[in-house]
């Protein structure tokens, strides 16, 4: 009896104490080796040829709050995007937009508590495929200009 009451109480306390920040990261190709492609949220300002638009959507459900067997996170989406860029014969994807459903720790714990309700999860990555003209160099963002008086 004590255990039955104790577990939800611990979960509720954990939820209350947990942060509301959810973090997702994805590692991208470094564009340092031949054959690497770039994915950037910037515009390319060097001459390029547009090869079209692409949107990758991954849909699935989360089980027990934490399990994501279908792979609907940012990393999984990027793993779908990079082959699409290569298949199109592009050097990269510019102006990439990312949209995904994120669960905070509290949300995941709620999913664990209500384990019988699968939580829908989606990640969408879109952008414009481009092939650079001339020498192929990565469109690195410009370094910020120093501000204020010199020391």
């Amino acid at each position: 009896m004590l255990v039955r009451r104790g577990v939800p109480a611990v979960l509720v306390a954990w939820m209350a104490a947990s942060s509301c920040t959810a973090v997702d990261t994805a590692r991208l190709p470094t564009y340092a080796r031949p054959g690497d492609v770039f994915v950037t949220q910037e515009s390319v300002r060097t001459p390029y040829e547009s090869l079209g638009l692409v949107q990758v959507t991954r849909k699935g459900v989360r089980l027990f709050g934490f399990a994501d067997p279908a792979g609907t996170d940012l990393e999984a989406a990027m793993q779908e995007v990079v082959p699409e860029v290569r298949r199109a014969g592009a050097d990269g994807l510019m102006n990439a937009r990312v949209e995904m459903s994120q669960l905070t720790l509290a949300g995941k714990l709620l999913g664990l508590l209500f384990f019988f309700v699968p939580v829908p999860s989606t990640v969408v990555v879109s952008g414009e495929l481009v092939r650079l003209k001339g020498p192929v160099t990565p469109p690195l963002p410009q370094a910020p200009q120093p501000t204020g008086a010199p020391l």
Partner: protein
Amino acid sequence: MKRLALLFLVASALTGCNAVSKGSRLSNRPMDSGGVYLTTGDAPKRFRTVGFVQVRGYGVEVAGYADVGDAQLDGTIKGAMVREALRLNGHGVIHIEFEDENPSSDVERAQGLANSFSNLSTGKGGVETKDRYVSATGEVIQFLE
């Protein structure tokens, strides 16, 4: 019965679906042809903004494969959006953002086709259809040079 429900739950979780929507090429940089300049990036030369445009294309996917209407990236951007840009006397649309709101995966398309055949062969219902939406926004510009 409980086992069946659990099996369905696990199967549906493991079979996440993946859909890829594609649109044809937009404008190159620098500009190399006439027509309305379209890009997801910024303008290749000096410009002034004449307005903003948002389009939500609607169409129907018939039997999983045939798309009717504007619910494709090309129909929405190169059709409806370009028409609006020309109506505003624009020379181009920059900073285009787009979203295929409910794309179908290959499995869903195949399922739509199979269901349509099944419905027609058994005489229970007709061809399966699905409403499709694509939205796009952009900044309509006029070049100054």
